[in-house]
């Protein structure tokens, strides 16, 4: 029996998640500018500096920005544990933005110093984020599967940060002392499946029933999904031990990719199939535009394993670009965009209106953001995904630039939606 809880002081101020969320459109605009400036070149090969910038605009500028902002808010709410020194979140936010700026500057022709500065900024940002958040998640009495998933996500974030920043030394005049392709594969696997996939899965277990009245996922199902995910994150590391010794048909990085199969099956097959089923069987089928994002994102997830197989089997680098595009923008960012359209009105309602309930009339959360505005964002986001897929497969220059324009429109739509809701205040 619980009789205590958070105090109002422990709940993080709205300005913390809001500052992260408001800069997500900046990451999208950066990606849009690269596509508009470089056209099909930016979508031709994953090792092109423009493509590296594009990928990190998505992972650091969009996904990490949203997920870190959300974790500051979710940890006290879901885990019931306040994050110590939460105010340094503003510093984390600034360092994350500076790190993304340094990466982009270097890859788009800037000096080695830009990469060195980016490495420092991101190291400091991640330490200042991971230590307090890890402490809060470690000492929470809550033992739920969602909390386990949040823990796995931040351990994965720490791992990919370490690997990523060591590899980034190569762009700052240093040398990466290892099998670069193998470590890129592990960086990619842990980033997409552990950090992004782990958090999406864990959060969906909480928010899909909470916001959409879908059934709870069975606890034993959650446990074995979590176990498989963990196995698929640890097994690829075993391929590090066999690197250079395989002498087989497969290279070490291909072995690492195959070893991640249990995790890939959980995140890109079982989880989307399960949640799509629960959404379709929900108790009260109230129309909600934010669900369009979930359906599209989870539907897209089902395409990722077939594309990954194509990456392994076919030498054409376009498949690797397509894999990144579909995973980052079609699956993870799509779900995040939908979550923002549901969570930001919720946070605004909670922080600005809930204290007045019972004393005066307050607006409903749904009235803070129109469904039409959410649908517009969805149509733009989905269009950019689809046109981007065609641009990657055909390498037609104007289609790549059109994708850039659609990204720009999506960023403007998302930014205006966030500002519209965040400006709402009681009269």
């Amino acid at each position, binding site marked *: *029996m619980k009789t205590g*809880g958070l105090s109002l002081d*422990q709940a993080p101020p709205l300005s913390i998640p809001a500052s992260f969320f408001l800069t997500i459109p900046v990451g999208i605009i950066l990606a849009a500018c690269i596509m508009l400036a470089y056209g099909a070149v930016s979508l031709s090969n994953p090792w092109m500096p423009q493509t590296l910038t594009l990928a990190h605009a998505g992972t650091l500028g969009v996904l990490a920005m949203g997920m870190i902002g959300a974790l500051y808010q979710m940890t006290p709410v879901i885990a019931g544990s306040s994050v110590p020194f939460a105010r340094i979140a503003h510093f984390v936010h600034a360092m994350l933005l500076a790190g993304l700026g340094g990466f982009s500057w270097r890859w788009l022709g800037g000096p080695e110093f830009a990469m060195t500065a980016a490495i420092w900024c991101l190291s400091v940002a991640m330490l200042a984020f991971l230590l307090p958040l890890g402490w809060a998640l470690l000492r929470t009495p809550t033992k739920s599967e969602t909390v386990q998933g949040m823990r796995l996500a931040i351990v994965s974030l720490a791992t990919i940060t370490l690997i990523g920043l060591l590899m980034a030394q190569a762009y700052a005049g240093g040398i990466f002392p290892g099998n670069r392709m193998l470590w890129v594969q592990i960086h990619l696997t842990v980033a997409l499946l552990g950090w992004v996939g782990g958090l999406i899965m864990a959060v969906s277990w909480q928010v899909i*029933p909470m916001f959409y009245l879908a059934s*709870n996922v069975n606890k034993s199902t959650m446990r074995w999904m979590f176990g498989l995910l963990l196995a698929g994150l640890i097994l690829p590391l075993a391929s590090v031990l066999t690197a250079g010794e395989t002498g087989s048909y497969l290279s070490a990085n291909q072995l690492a990719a195959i070893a991640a199969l249990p995790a890939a099956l959980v995140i890109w097959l079982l989880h989307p199939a399960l949640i799509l089923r629960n959404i379709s069987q929900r108790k009260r089928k109230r129309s909600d535009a934010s669900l369009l994002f979930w359906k599209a994102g989870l539907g897209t997830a089902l395409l990722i394993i077939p594309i990954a197989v194509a990456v392994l089997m076919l030498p054409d680098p376009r498949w690797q670009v397509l894999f990144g595009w579909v995973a980052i923008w079609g699956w993870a960012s799509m779900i995040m965009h939908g979550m923002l359209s549901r969570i930001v009105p*919720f946070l605004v309602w*909670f922080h600005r209106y*809930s*204290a007045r*309930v019972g004393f005066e009339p307050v607006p409903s959360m749904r009235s803070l953001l129109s469904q039409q505005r959410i649908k517009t964002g969805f149509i733009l986001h989905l269009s950019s995904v689809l046109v981007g897929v065609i641009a990657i497969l055909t390498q037609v220059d104007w289609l790549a630039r059109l994708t850039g324009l659609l990204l720009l429109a999506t960023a403007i739509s998302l930014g205006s939606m966030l500002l519209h809701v965040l400006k709402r205040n009681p009269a």
Partner: protein
Amino acid sequence: MNKSVSDHFNVVENELPGIIDLRGLEAPEPMQKILQACTQMGPDDKYLAHLPHVPNLLFPHLEARGLHWQVHEKADGSALILIRRKH
């Protein structure tokens, strides 16, 4: 069910009010319903609700309104909450 509920909260069974089932409401509607019902509660009133999950975000508001609460989390993740005014 009421017997087991009274056990959870160490309250005599006939002192418990009927359970308001708020599990069919999307967030933040359960919080809104509870705050509306409890803000003007008298010193001897009690409010008992069944929620879809432990409402961590509700607790600061109950605290600010001088209300005492007890929560029992059930195996399915839903939660029972008993609210009364602090004496």
